Structure formats: structure tokens, C-alpha cells
């Protein structure tokens, strides 16, 4: 049978009365007992139930045990031949079940208890398979079972290594080159690591959608607009100040200062030149506080935007600001007459000064200590994550082939990782020690600390797990391989200790000869110490000893 048969359908042949609904279009069937023609299996089923339910009572001779078996055999054959044609007009229940084998749900099927390989896809290459030598062990790091008839000896279809039955209980879709191909691959048996390394399977990051650029472009539009507006206001102010300066300069040259009133008129005219004033009839209400203009609420013109505003002290919709103050805030321009006041509305004042204030504040403010620490912490986090990945990769290498070079590399990355984890912890602790300055600070500090603790536990735990995993495989691995220099030094040390043991032995002999028994206990103590030391060094040296 070629198709994968799922649970409910396998039941069908076992019972005499098949519960599965039948497809609509079918060739004619005939009852095996009376030869009645029926259109569908369902009808046949009904007919058998109705007409021949107690057939054995009716015709005792015709339905012997043998006949019953014939009947069930025939039914089984029919059911099998029908189910193999199922794809057309499948009942909804079956469609649902069948969808499990479709490419859209590969992982669901992969975990199902007893899937069978689907041969519909391309033929998967077997070139990379490892040939069994008769004395193989399961390639799964923690298993290492001898592969034989009982344990099984199965090649992972993807990596080609030999595994026991237990550790190839995974399925994934492979293409003809034995690479993962979720869309049009063939279901193949594979090992756990191949299964886990499927792209997208254990990637805990999940899907991300970066909307930042989108946000930035839309945000930039507003920022640009505001910048333009601010520029415009600044330009107007600069122009205004320049005109006033001109007038004042002319005025200073005059002998008769009491003609000042004429310069005041000129200034008023200049104010109107720089920005066109809105006509008094254009507005009935203040555009900021929406108060109606009248006898008490007078109309005023903002000298920078020309709009009509009220001069209410309470709402401060517009105010007369000395030019000197504005120039001081803005910087770069100098008014000859800083005492001269111009009316500026609230909106223009904000627009004019906000940017400058913001820049000034940014320049002035230094990052608080805890933010500095946070910055450092995030840098460390990045480093730790990279190191962790490296470490894991090196561990995999070591598990693959425990050569000196791979072990040294693994130890190196482990050392680096430990170092940066320690540095991270220290930094996070410094956050705890630092004296809180205000209630806002303490909250932020607390949050940073919490994050740091979480990060440390998460990654420290990961690190430990990797390490333990490796230790399980090779219990003797954690002891770092000795370098030649270390071996030489350890041997020298061992020689010194052995020499000293010999000397002490002689001393004990002499002491005994000379009847100085009180000297013997400390000497014996020392001899024991020396023996212990020698033992330690020998253990450390291992096979590098003498």
C-alpha cells in the first residue's frame, strides 16, 4: 500500500461493518450473498445489516465459518481498494486527517508516534551513509549503545551517521541531496540533532518585523516640518532685529534725539514688513484660547507669525518680550536696543525656543551613572551571547573529534565566557551598591538590575548546561590539557618531592639510630604530606608522568 494510513482508517478492515462513509461516485457493487446490485458501500452496508443480519439463522448451511471469513476478506479487499482511490471527494473528516501529511504541517507529523516514510517525494541519496563496520556505537552523544540487531542500526538519512532505533525516531523532509526541504522533500528518518537543527525549529527568536525605518520616515516628515517652521521663525526674528538695528543706527547718528518717535514709527512699519499681519476682520476669536475678541479682550498681532491673538495675562497667549531676551536665548544675533519689546504669541515662542533648549539640555546633561552601567551591561550582553554561541560550536567540535586543538579551543572560549560572565555580574552588583539619588532613579535601577539578574541566570544556566552535557560525554575532559611547559614544571616538582622523601627517610633512620625518638613523629607526618603531594602531582600528570 503506498499511501500513509492514519489511525482511523487502519481500523476499517478489522471490523466487519466499516464505519467509514463512502465517496459519492463509485462503480456498482453487488452483495456477495444475494447478488443484489447496490450503488455505494454505504448502501451495501445497510443492505447487509437489514437483509442478512441473521443470515446464519435463516440459511444455516450457507454461512459457515469459512463463508464468514470469505465475507470479511472480500470486505477488506473492497475497503482497501476504495481507500486507495480516496483523493477525489474525500469526506471532511478524512480531509482533515490527510492534511497532516501535506507540506504545510510537517512538524505535526514529525512527532506522530508511528509515521511511515512517504515515497512520493524524490529519492534521497544514500551516498553519504556511514557503512556499518559491525562494531559501531550509536552516534548520539549520550547514548553510545552498541549497534546490533536488538538496538537497531539505522543511518540518519540526513547526516548519514549510524544510530540506534531509539535515537532515529524523528522524521523530516529531505530532498534528493539529503538536505532539508520542507516543501517537496520526502519524509525520512533522522536523528535528533538533525531534527533540532532544522531552520526555524528551535530558533527562539521567532519572527521579527522591523518597523523602525517605517516609523523613522513618517516621524522624519513631522520633524522636518517643525524644523522648517522653526527656521522660518528664526529667520523672521533675525530679519526683524537687523531692521531695528538699521533704524537705531540711523537714529544714533542724529543730533536730535527727541525725534525718536519717528524711529518708533519706522520700527512699527518694519514689524509689518517682516511678516504680513492678518487683517483685523479675519478673526473673531483668539486662535490659541478661543476667547472672543471684544472691548476687554483686545486683538494683538504676533510679530513673528502675524496672526491675531489675545493679550490675556492669565492664558499668556501672547506677551511682550524684550528683544534682548530673545536674542540672548537664540544666540548669534545682537539687538542694539535690547529693551525694545515685541509681541510674540505662545506658539511662536515655543517653536522658536524649543529646539535651542533641547540642544542646550542635551549638551549640558551628562549620563547618570546607572545609565552608564546599563550601557556597559548591554555591551557585555552582546559579547556574552556571541561567546556562548562560539562555545557551543566548539563543544560540538569536541564531541565530534576530541583532538587537542579542539579541546584547547573549547577551553579558551570557556575561559573567555567565564571572564565576561564574571565581569557582567560584577557590573550588575555595582548597580546595587551605588547610592540611589531619587525615587525615579531607584525604579530604573531596580528594573536594570532585574533585567541583569534574569540575563545572568539565563545565560549562566545555559553555559552550565552545555558544560555538563560535555562532561557527561567525556568525564575526563574538564581537566585542561597540560602544556609542555606545565608538564616539565610538574615533573621537576615531583622530582624535588621525591628527593625530599628520600631525605626524610634517611633522617628517620638516623634519628632511630641515634635514639632521638621524639624527632620521628614530625618526620613521619612530613613524609605522609610528601606522599600525598606526590600522589596529587602524579594524578595531575596522568600518563605524562615518568
Amino acid at each position, binding site marked *: 500500500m503506498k499511501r500513509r494510513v492514519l489511525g482511523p482508517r487502519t481500523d476499517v478492515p478489522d471490523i466487519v461493518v466499516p464505519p467509514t462513509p463512502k465517496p459519492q461516485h463509485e462503480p456498482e457493487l453487488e452483495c456477495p450473498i444475494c447478488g443484489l446490485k447496490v450503488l455505494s458501500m454505504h448502501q451495501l452496508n445497510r443492505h447487509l445489516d437489514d437483509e442478512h443480519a441473521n443470515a446464519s439463522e435463516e440459511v444455516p448451511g450457507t454461512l459457515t465459518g469459512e463463508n464468514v471469513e470469505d465475507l470479511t476478506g472480500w470486505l477488506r479487499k473492497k475497503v482497501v481498494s476504495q481507500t486507495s482511490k480516496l483523493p477525489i471527494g474525500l469526506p471532511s473528516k478524512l480531509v482533515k486527517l490527510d492534511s497532516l501529511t501535506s507540506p504545510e504541517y510537517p512538524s505535526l507529523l514529525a512527532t506522530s508516534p508511528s509515521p511511515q516514510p512517504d515515497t512520493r517525494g524524490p529519492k534521497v541519496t544514500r551516498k553519504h551513509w556511514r557503512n556499518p563496520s559491525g562494531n559501531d556505537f550509536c552516534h548520539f552523544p549520550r547514548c553510545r549503545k552498541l549497534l546490533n540487531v536488538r538496538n537497531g542500526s539505522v543511518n540518519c538519512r540526513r547526516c548519514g551517521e549510524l544510530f540506534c532505533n531509539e535515537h532515529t525516531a524523528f522524521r523530516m523532509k529531505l530532498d534528493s541531496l539529503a538536505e532539508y526541504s520542507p516543501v517537496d522533500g520526502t519524509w525520512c528518518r533522522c536523528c535528533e540533532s538533525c531534527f533540532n537543527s532544522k531552520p526555524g525549529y528551535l530558533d527562539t527568536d521567532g519572527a521579527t518585523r522591523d518597523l523602525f525605518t517605517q516609523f523613522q520616515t513618517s516621524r522624519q516628515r513631522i520633524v522636518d516640518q517643525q524644523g522648517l517652521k522653526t527656521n522660518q521663525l528664526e529667520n523672521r526674528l533675525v530679519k526683524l532685529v537687523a531692521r531695528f538695528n538699521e533704524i537705531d543706527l540711523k537714529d544714533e547718528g542724529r543730533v536730535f534725539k527727541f525725534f525718536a518717535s519717528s524711529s518708533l514709527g519706522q520700527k512699527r512699519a518694519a514689524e509689518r514688513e517682516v511678516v504680513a499681519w492678518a487683517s483685523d476682520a479675519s478673526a473673531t476669536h483668539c486662535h490659541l484660547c478661543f476667547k472672543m475678541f471684544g472691548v476687554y479682550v483686545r486683538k494683538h498681532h504676533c510679530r513673528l507669525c502675524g496672526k491675531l491673538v489675545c493679550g490675556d495675562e492669565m492664558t499668556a497667549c501672547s506677551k511682550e518680550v524684550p528683544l534682548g531676551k530673545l536674542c540672548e536665548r537664540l544666540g548669534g544675533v545682537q539687538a542694539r536696543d535690547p529693551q525694545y519689546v515685541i509681541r510674540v504669541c505662545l506658539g511662536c515662542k515655543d517653536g522658536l525656543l524649543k529646539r535651542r533648549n533641547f540642544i542646550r539640555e542635551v549638551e549640558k546633561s551628562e549620563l547618570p551613572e546607572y545609565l552608564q552601567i546599563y550601557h556597559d551591561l548591554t555591551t557585555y550582553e552582546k559579547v556574552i551571547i556571541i561567546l556562548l554561541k562560539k562555545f557551543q560550536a566548539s563543544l560540538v567540535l569536541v564531541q565530534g573529534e576530541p583532538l587537542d586543538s579542539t579541546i584547547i579551543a573549547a577551553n579558551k572560549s570557556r575561559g573567555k565566557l567565564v571572564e565576561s560572565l564574571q565581569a557582567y555580574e560584577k557590573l550588575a552588583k555595582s548597580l546595587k551598591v551605588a547610592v540611589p539619588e531619587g525615587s525615579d532613579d531607584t525604579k530604573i535601577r531596580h528594573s536594570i538590575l532585574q533585567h541583569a539578574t534574569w540575563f545572568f541566570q539565563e545565560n549562566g544556566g545555559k553555559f552550565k548546561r552545555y558544560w555538563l552535557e560535555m562532561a557527561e560525554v567525556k568525564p575526563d575532559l574538564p581537566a585542561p590539557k597540560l602544556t609542555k611547559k606545565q608538564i616539565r614544571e610538574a615533573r621537576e616538582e615531583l622530582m624535588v618531592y621525591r628527593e*625530599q622523601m628520600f*631525605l626524610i627517610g634517611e633522617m628517620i633512620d638516623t634519628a632511630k639510630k641515634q635514639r632521638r625518638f621524639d624527632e620521628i613523629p614530625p618526620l613521619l607526618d612530613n613524609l605522609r604530606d610528601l606522599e600525598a603531594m606526590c600522589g596529587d602531582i602524579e594524578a595531575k600528570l596522568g600518563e605524562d608522568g615518568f
Partner: protein
Amino acid sequence: MSIEDPIPRFAQFKLVLLGESAVGKSSIVHRFVKDSFDDLRESTIGAAFLTQTIKLANDTTVKFEIWDTAGQERYKSLAPMYYRNANCAVVVYDITQLASLERAKNWIKELQRQANADITIALTGNKLDLEAEREVSTGEAQQYAIDNGLLFCEVSAKTGDGIRDVFYRIAEQLPVEEQIRSTMSRSKPRINLNKPSTNTDQGCAC
């Protein structure tokens, strides 16, 4: 001898000598233990062991178990084993060699770090007989000793000057009373020499 014969007050301490090679550690010990001096002493191999007892004023006997370590670099790894549970250490330098004082300071630092916390350390300048070739002034070494809370002496193993002083001063610093008390509390049954013999006349005739 009466039954009330006071139990002899006795304490025993482990002492270790440290210092650069050829500063005269073995000579100091030999002067102290055997009161002898050898001009052509060979350098020590490993560590030598000697004992000496001294009597203090208040009828107390103090026994020193002396470990005389070799100063050569080769035997450096042995030293920790001997100073680890030592009660006192004599760190020796040569007053005619400034470098030896530096080495002594290193030893002192190591002792303060690794040895017993209550170890008594005596900084000892040897070769006082070679006053003419002196490189280390008394003041400098003494100041260092005061700063670090050490005993300080200058001695000459050749002439024997100040040797006994060093050990007596160390003994004064040691917790003699405490040790005597602790040994008394778990004192072993002592043999009474005045006890009448328990041997009966019967038995072996020899």
C-alpha cells in the same frame, strides 16, 4: 620526690626558616642547635630537620621543631609544605646583599597570605660580622619590620651574636601558656616512677 611534684611545663612549636640562598639560614640553625660554625657549609638540599629546646624564665621548656628549608629556586615548591602549619618563621636576609632583603619581603608577603594567621615572624639580618660590607641599613629593615608587625634582629652566625636572642624573643611571643593548658587538659596518664612494683615474686626466675 614527692607525689605533688609539679608537672613540667612544656610546649612544642614548629619553626620554619626562609630566605634567599646563601644568606646563612643553616648556619643560624647550627649555631643555635649545635653552637658550631662551618666556614665551608654546603648548600642545603630540600629541607633539613632539627630540634632544640630552650628553657624560659618561668620554668617552661619550649621545644622548637626547626625546618631549615633550602633557599635555592629549585626547592621553592617545598616551602609551602613547611610553613603551612608552622607557628613561627624566621625570615633571613644578608645585610651585605640588598637583593636578599627584597626576597625576604616577598617571603613575608607570602607568609601573611598563605600561612597561619597567628604566625610569629622574625625578620633576621645575618652576617653582622661583615659590618664593613653592609648594604642594608638597620633603620630601613627595622622600619619595615615595625610596619608589618614583625620581630626584628640582626645576628651573626659566625660569631654567634644575637642568635639565642632571636629564638628567645620568638618564644616570648608564642602562645606558650595556651598550649600548655591545652596539653594539660588532654594530658596522657603519666608514669609514676615512685609506684611500688606490681611484679609479683612468682613467675619467671630471671
